[in-house]
């Protein structure tokens, strides 16, 4: 059940979003997202629109890493833009981003840039290094990601 959260500042909106993701509560996170949100996930080459796209990105992450821990180090507000720096950690339990499950531990530093309007996230752009991700998941080659 989605529980809308009333927030007032861009930082509060993003912080509530991150808190929900950290709880693996994807419904509450998506309740803070504009239905027409612009979603850019650079490591995936994903440039699409819509809350369902972001829902899939988050759900895939939580499903692949059921013990996922999100540790936020900084939240930087620059007007309507809020940039969050955090580390995502977890143990792989399902295929992710093309990589088969070898039960490896992932720890990856990320930066997500949000734009908010009216208490909702209208843009999100995610930055992390897919080389670091594949290295931790024991992937050897970019052209053979699914081969251990």
């Amino acid at each position, binding site marked *: 059940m989605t529980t809308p959260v009333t927030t007032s500042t861009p930082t509060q909106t993003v912080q509530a979003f991150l808190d929900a993701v950290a709880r693996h509560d994807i419904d509450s996170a998506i309740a803070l997202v504009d239905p027409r949100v612009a979603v850019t996930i650079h490591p995936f080459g994903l440039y699409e629109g819509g809350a369902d796209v972001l829902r899939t990105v988050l759900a895939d992450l939580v499903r692949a890493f059921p013990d996922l821990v999100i540790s936020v180090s900084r939240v930087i507000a620059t007007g309507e833009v809020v940039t969050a720096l955090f580390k995502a950690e977890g143990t792989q339990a399902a295929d992710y981003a093309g990589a088969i499950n070898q039960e490896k531990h992932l720890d990856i530093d990320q930066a997500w840039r949000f734009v908010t309007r009216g208490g909702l996230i209208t843009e999100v752009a995610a930055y992390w290094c897919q080389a*670091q991700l594949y290295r931790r998941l024991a992937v050897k080659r970019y052209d053979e990601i699914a081969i251990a």
Partner: protein
Amino acid sequence: MTETTQRPRTAESAAGVVTEFFDRYRAHDVHGMTDLCSINADFSYVPVEIWGKQRVLRGDGKVSTVGKPLWTGLIASFPNLSNTVHSITSNDDGDVVVQADIEGTQQLAWGLITPAGRHYREPHLFIFHVGPDLLIDSITAYWNDAGISQQLGHTEVD
């Protein structure tokens, strides 16, 4: 190494310093880039990590000892290295966030990547902090290094 200024730090002046930083980067003026930084400015290029047998080298340290050699090496390997700034946002505390593409054509080896004359263009997110003296005292950057490797024809993760 440092330049002094009498301007107060505001969101606008901090953004102006960072804009100048990217202008100088585009001009391959590495000395000019470091002139915009404080002597002890922190530096972190998060994706940079080289795994050896017994240790991991990371792109963390100071602008003077890690950033400057790294920029110099990049420009040597990619003589037409350039940047396109897409957005700059800032606040009165001196935080400046920049979305920029970095691109270049490889002419010399870069890390484990042998030169094949290929071109890369990769989105980056930079987080700067500009001190009250209007000098950059921290640079952090994120990007997808796998994207660069693949564009340059390097298909091995390490």
